[in-house]
């Protein structure tokens, strides 16, 4: 049972439907605490969207049940990726998950070290992760990008950049 649920959640179509259901129900629940005038539009739109999500779920599962494989129709799914080329799917997943992880680390680094230092580290680490292995070029490109951003935003336009706890 758990395996089936986990396999279904790997399918973006199902995953998005689950997200929409949760999001709309949370908003509907929250809407009860808002005054009448403030909740009119959100409530109306949430209910209409809920009906549409239900209709989409019904259509999706009806087609999925009909098809022999049980794989959903419409939407690029993770299952299709795996079926197409297991190695490529694994490569994509690894690259993507690593990149998303780096994004979150980048945000945390900005909070600690400020924008410029973190950006240099992020650029170098990200390029390396994405397969750019020429160390010198990688470091020069990262440094040059940071300098360009500094010259444009801080020096020319006097814009305040994200500051961290240390810098």
């Amino acid at each position, binding site marked *: 049972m758990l395996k089936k649920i986990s396999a279904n959640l790997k399918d973006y179509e199902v995953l998005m439907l689950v997200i929409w259901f949760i999001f709309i129900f949370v908003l509907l629940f929250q809407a009860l605490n808002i005054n009448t005038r*403030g909740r009119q539009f959100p409530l109306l739109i949430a209910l209409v969207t809920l009906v549409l999500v239900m209709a989409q779920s019904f259509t999706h599962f009806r087609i999925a049940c009909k098809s022999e494989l049980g794989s959903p129709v419409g939407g690029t799914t993770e299952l299709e990726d795996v079926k197409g080329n297991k190695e490529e799917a694994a490569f994509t997943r690894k690259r993507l998950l690593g990149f998303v992880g780096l994004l979150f680390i980048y945000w945390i680094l900005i909070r600690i070290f400020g924008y410029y230092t973190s950006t240099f580290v992020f650029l170098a680490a990200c390029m390396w992760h994405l397969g*750019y292995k020429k160390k010198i070029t990688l470091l020069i490109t990262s440094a040059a990008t940071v300098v360009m951003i500094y010259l444009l935003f801080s020096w020319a336009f006097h814009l305040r950049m994200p500051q961290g706890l240390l810098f």
Partner: protein
Amino acid sequence: MLEAIDYFLSGISHAFTWYNMLLILVGMLLGTFLGALPGIGPPLAVALLLPMVFGMDPIPALMLILGVYNGGVYGGSITAILINTPGTAGSAATTIDGYPMAQKGQAGMALGAALSASVVGGLISSVIFILVALPFGKFTLKFGPSELFLLILVALATVSRLAGKYPIKGLIATGIGCLLAYIGFDRITGFTRFDFGIRLLEDGLDLLVVLIGWFAVTEVMFLVSRKTETISTTGLEKGGILKGVLQVFRYPKNLLTSSAIGAFVGAVPGIGMAIANFVAYATAKDGSKHPEKFGTGYIEGVIAPEASNNAVTGTSLIPTLVLGIPGNPTTAVMLGALMILGLRPGVGLFTTRPEIMSSMMVGLIIIQFAMLLTGLLTLRYYQMVTKVNIAVLSPIIIAVSFVGAFIARYNCYDLLIAVILGLLAYGMRKAEYPVVCAVLGFVLASELEVNYHRALMASRGNLGTFFGSPICTVIIALGLLVYLWPLMKRLMLKLRTSGS
């Protein structure tokens, strides 16, 4: 009419100086560059200029500002085409066909078409500004909240045309976009909604942050999950820019209709170019001989939004200068600039400082040609972006986008929101939900609600206010036509085929 032309001619001597020409060129280059940076956009680009124009003579200062404004609007399309990240909401619809063209190695053609369409849109808008600034300015005063509510409702009809193969998914995406727009302060009651007790969400989600998340972060995620080394999977087409510039004139109907839509939307205060580009795209798709090609990298899909968003620039000055009511955030900053320069916007400006108004009119026309010139000179370098290694390009896009997301409100948590929204949009795109529909919902939702409540408050709860005025009747008729047009088109086709 003759009076307007006289007025225009008198401005030539004031505007046509070498100094002004140079400032227009500088403004155009600066505006295009800043507009192309995700998150900067025309309002911030113009705002950044304010300290520089302080102390300058009004005419050269206005030339510089107008150059940046027009360049900024056009610049937004460059990133929309090259990296699927619109510089402004006004270029969001350009991504639908512009980016697929870039992927096919036709970045130059798409950029050229966007340039040419922008110039034509800007020219038409400038001519309208020159001819009808005064009378139309007074007419737009008749647009109250009920008229604006109905107009936005008509604009929502475009959702069905943007959704492509899955209309239900398009509607769901629009609903989700609307619901996200309701997070934060309710502009009518002043209370916060859906903030989940998180202080950051009390102010709601900033449009810029949403655009960066939904386009820049998502697109980079798609780029890194690809095995190809560059955005363009084929080589760059030679001579594409000029080809694109000329191709635009093969679609005069699309060009004129889209420019007219942009010009009209620009003149009505409170409706932004975000609406203009979507409505123009949907209208172009409806009227095209090849609607099935839209969304696959079709040049008409670039022409429509680009002609319309630049057509907004000229006419958006009508309410700003004639009534002192800014039509969009950029003209609001411009209003501030005018005051810094010691000018008081209003009908009186036409009589007290006629040289200012007339030189602005001439300046607007010159700016369009300056845009063509700077575009032709610089676009070949911009299109190289599609040949840069994705491993190098992706982190740079993120680093620059993070600056844009941060300076929207100077809040570090906005960066986190952009990443989370990016992840959401990644899932949406994987499941084939059209993200542009969500953008449309996000842009329109709060305006729709605010104008609805304002109209009811003004009429003391009388729903008849939405049907009362002649303008409302015209908008409702137009809306019915827009909503029923696909049905009518199918019916006419059926009748024609059964007849033959």
